[in-house]
């Protein structure tokens, strides 16, 4: 019995010593998503420093929410406790040049890779020149936010309707329900700068543009010749979002030019 115990202990000891040499992929992955605050409240993540960008009304690159969440803690917090002691949660953008971090007090900031900071700030300080239209949607299959950038034909159709169709003014207290509503943005070609402009709405194959940014909401009904273009705009959104069971109450006055 004693001999068996001695041999068993010896084998276990040898195995334990060898096993100490093996690293763990899951741990390495956790470390890659665990950042630390620096003294000046920037983020140090996987050996790379990300500097906090100044606020900007239009700067909103899309975070890649399909990736694992980034947690950021004070220095010294073990990696296994990173999500427990994180001050919020963050995501990389697809090119990993930026981090979008949301604190648990509902602040959100962009952090830029240190080597790209000057270029990014210069870009942010330059005038916002819209180069097209886009909208955000959530892809349930890939479980990430996405941006749909309107094609040239689609953008021209939207601009044409907005500029030529006579709008109908709606009383501010009116509630209008649509099957689908897209919040449309003017944006730069790199999709990093966006400015919300109006909404595109759809109900049962009919479309309109709703401008809520004036003193009263304005509805621009889309003429039939542009229906097919607007259908292609909505296609990506509808495919991703699914069916919304809402009624359209403004039917009688809708369509009046």
């Amino acid at each position: 019995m004693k001999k068996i115990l001695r041999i068993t202990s010896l084998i276990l000891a040898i195995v334990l010593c060898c096993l100490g040499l093996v690293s763990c992929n899951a741990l390495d992955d956790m470390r890659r998503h665990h950042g630390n605050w620096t003294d000046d409240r920037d983020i140090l993540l996987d050996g790379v420093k990300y500097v906090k960008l100044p606020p900007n009304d239009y700067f909103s690159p899309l975070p890649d929410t399909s990736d694992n969440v980034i947690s950021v803690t004070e220095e010294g917090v073990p990696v296994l406790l990173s999500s427990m002691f994180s001050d919020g949660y963050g995501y990389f953008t697809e090119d990993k040049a930026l981090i979008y971090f949301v604190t648990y007090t509902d602040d959100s900031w962009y952090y830029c890779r240190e080597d790209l900071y000057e270029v990014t700030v210069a870009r942010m300080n330059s005038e916002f020149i819209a180069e097209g239209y886009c909208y955000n949607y959530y892809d349930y299959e890939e479980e990430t936010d996405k941006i749909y950038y309107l094609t040239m034909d689609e953008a021209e159709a939207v601009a044409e309707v907005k500029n030529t169709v006579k709008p109908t003014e709606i009383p501010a207290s009116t509630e209008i329900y649509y099957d689908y509503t897209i919040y449309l943005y003017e944006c730069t070609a790199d999709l990093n700068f966006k400015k919300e402009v109006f909404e595109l709405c759809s109900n049962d194959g009919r479309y309109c543009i709703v401008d809520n940014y004036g003193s009263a909401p304005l509805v621009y009904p889309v003429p039939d010749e542009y229906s097919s273009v607007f259908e292609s705009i909505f296609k990506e959104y509808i495919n991703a979002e699914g069916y919304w069971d809402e009624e359209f109450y403004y039917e009688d006055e809708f369509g009046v030019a």
Partner: protein
Amino acid sequence: MVGKLFKYEFASYLRTWLPVQIIMLGIAALGRFVQFFEADTTVYKIIFGSSVVVYALSIIVSFVLTGILCIVRFYKNLFTGEGYLSFTLPVTPAQHILIKLLATVAVEIGTFIVALTSVCIITSGELFNEILKAIAYLTNMATDILGTHLVLYVIEFIFMLIMASVCGTLLIYGCISIGQTFNKSRVGWAVGVYFIYYMICQIAGTVFATVITLFYDKLPLNNILEWIEANPNAAIHIFLCSFIVIYLITAVIYYAVSYFIIKRKLNLE
């Protein structure tokens, strides 16, 4: 004589208990060995997942087997044919119960330590280092908040667990002792006694909770809650010590039942 009896009691436990623990350690080592081949493939994930499931089952089996072993040792050694030999030894009934109890508690603690060792084996390497770091960090944090109270809490908690183990073991001994007073289906009667006792405890607990709810306004519960809020450390100490005392009292009662039956109502097969 008592020392020798304890030694042989322990040896008889080890004969069955030890191979089970060695197997559990072996499964843990195997589980860690599988991680040598870590890869992002479906095959690896299936194999690794299976090894973790088998390991978890081995821990459960180990604890269950320890409990069963202790019950069987007590019953067979004192209330079956073996009992004729046991009670011819120059050992009092109290000593018999105490020796069995001590061996049981020692084996249960041993199972717990071996289970912890197996966790160390299956997580050995970087993961184990990170676990130690996490424990150290949380301990530092708790020390900063609680100060010296932390050490006392840990001691009280460990003592409470040991008392809970003793109390649970003596409860089972008491049920077995009552069961053996019947001539037929002794084990069945022992199980029945346990369930009747459990049901009585549940009914008493429900009645107590109902009374508290009905007379909530008349009882000084708000004052108690305010005091707890103002003195959290003292409240936790009182809570833990109360449980130790309750377990102690109930353990003494269960012991008394077993002692009385073995001394006055022994009914060997």
